[in-house]
């Protein structure tokens, strides 16, 4: 058995276990962390397929950013797991149907009859072949316009997300750092010139006598 095969089985077993725990773990934070573990092992599997760019992008984007924010939100929520489980038996038929549909679709794709996966030529790549470079070459030459359109759509989505959540509250006491930094001494304090105050001589004690 090749070392790569051992790695493949380790990654696959851990992925399946972690994915199962994502849906069976009682604590949502644990479930989110199991999802992170599943992503990690998927990245390992992709790495075995020599798709190092996709594998590292998966870790960078999903593990490093998306799941951190996801975890951040899940930790803030006080999820009552018993109440969520109440409708389990009612929703089971529909859920099972959708699940079966997805399994069927994946089976059609993976059997490869329609996509010709089975007849793909074996990969004999030169030692200096860079997956990242090839991906970039295709993305920025052959598919330059679709890529640009996709990035513009993403940009619109970013701005829309910001605009939808941006609301200026009237009662907020937020400070503006740029105003604070730009402040000068003369804005805060005024020096006025005035005549010196001279203390009057105390009234003479003899006067009263």
């Amino acid at each position: 058995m090749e070392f790569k095969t051992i790695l493949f089985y380790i990654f696959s077993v851990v992925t399946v276990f972690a994915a199962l725990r994502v849906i069976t773990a009682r604590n949502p934070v644990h479930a989110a962390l199991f999802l992170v573990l599943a992503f990690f092992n998927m990245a390992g599997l992709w790495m075995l397929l020599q798709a190092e760019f996709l594998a590292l992008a998966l870790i960078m984007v999903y593990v490093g950013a998306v799941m951190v924010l996801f975890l951040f939100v899940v930790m803030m929520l006080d999820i009552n797991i018993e109440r969520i489980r109440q409708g389990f038996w009612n929703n089971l038929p529909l859920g099972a149907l959708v699940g079966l549909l997805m399994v069927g679709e994946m089976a059609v794709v993976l059997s490869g009859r329609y996509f010709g996966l089975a007849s793909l030529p074996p990969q004999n790549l030169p030692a200096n072949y860079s997956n990242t470079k090839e991906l970039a070459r295709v993305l920025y030459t052959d598919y330059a316009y679709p890529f640009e359109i996709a990035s513009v759509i993403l940009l619109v989505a970013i701005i829309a997300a910001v605009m939808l959540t941006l609301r200026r509250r009237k009662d907020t006491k937020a400070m503006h750092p740029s105003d604070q930094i730009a402040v000068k001494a003369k804005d805060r304090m005024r020096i006025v010139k005035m005549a010196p105050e001279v203390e009057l001589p105390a009234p003479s004690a003899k006067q009263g006598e």
Partner: protein
Amino acid sequence: MEAMVVPFLEGLLGSLWPLVKPVWPLIWTLLKIVLILSPLLLSVAYLTFWERKIIGWMQVRIGPNRVGPWGLLQPIADGLKLFFKEVLFPTAADKKLFVLGPVMAIAPALAAWAVIPFSPGWVLANVDAGVLYLLAISSVGVYGIIVAGWASNSKYPFFGAMRAAAQMISYEVSMGLGLITVLMVSNSLNLTEIVSAQSKGLFAGYGLGLFSWNWLPLLPMFGVYLISGVAETNRAPFDVVEGESEIVAGHMVEYSGMAFAMFFLAEYANMILISAMTSVFFLGGWLSPVGFLPNGFHWMAAKMAAILFFFLWIRATFPRYRYDQIMRLGWKVFVPLTLVWILVVGVWMMSPLTIWK
């Protein structure tokens, strides 16, 4: 070197060798990992000592000087003390995640060293996508802090975890964008090639290699990268994650003994990692600054030491940033600056004035 070890082992083990052969790559890699990590952990121990000494001198104190000659055994004593302390578990804590927190903090800090080249050929994995690997692994480091903060089931650790999540994600963005200019001018994601790309240039031709390194043509990015590196490791003046005057020690409040020591190790290993990455990306790695001196690991070590000194220096110099100002610096100053500079470098590379050919 592997070519020398394998026949020797084959002779030694004889008929047992076929049993060992499938796992041999694993054993060999583990040996190399030990070779990288043991000096690293030793430097972590002495970095803590050096930090206390330097900050002491900057504040006109002596610093630790009781244990051993010149206090040199202080980090060993500290380590022993932490080792023998009891690890306390708060009753309301999530035990499993409480243990997992420090592990998830230290694992990425050590794993990232796999692709760092110390000298030509001195690298565990000379992979093509080294920069991507570094970005991916360093983005995982935040989990240790978040998990520890949540699992402690206590207020201050949770505040620390929330601050860490926001701060580390923000500064990863500017760090990654800053690195894009480096990738553009070196035309590679491989760290060894990024270093060798810096050995060519106008000044390198005159024997003044230090002006051909990336720091000069990419000076704004060098600044952004270094400052983001300080923020990414949660060091002063960006240490609001564990700011002792506000939230005691942030995510580390409930930890004691070796569990606490793991966070400490991770922080210092990350500092050394950032200094190694800065030397490779901007300061020419193992390249000699002047033509008449030989290249080698000593230059890499000297550059890393200089950047580490910078880390300690600013810790002793600057007051802590306010939290909203950290966010403002990251998103409103660094991100626009890096985006503009990517455009500037792109135009520069395409113009006839280009210095990268």
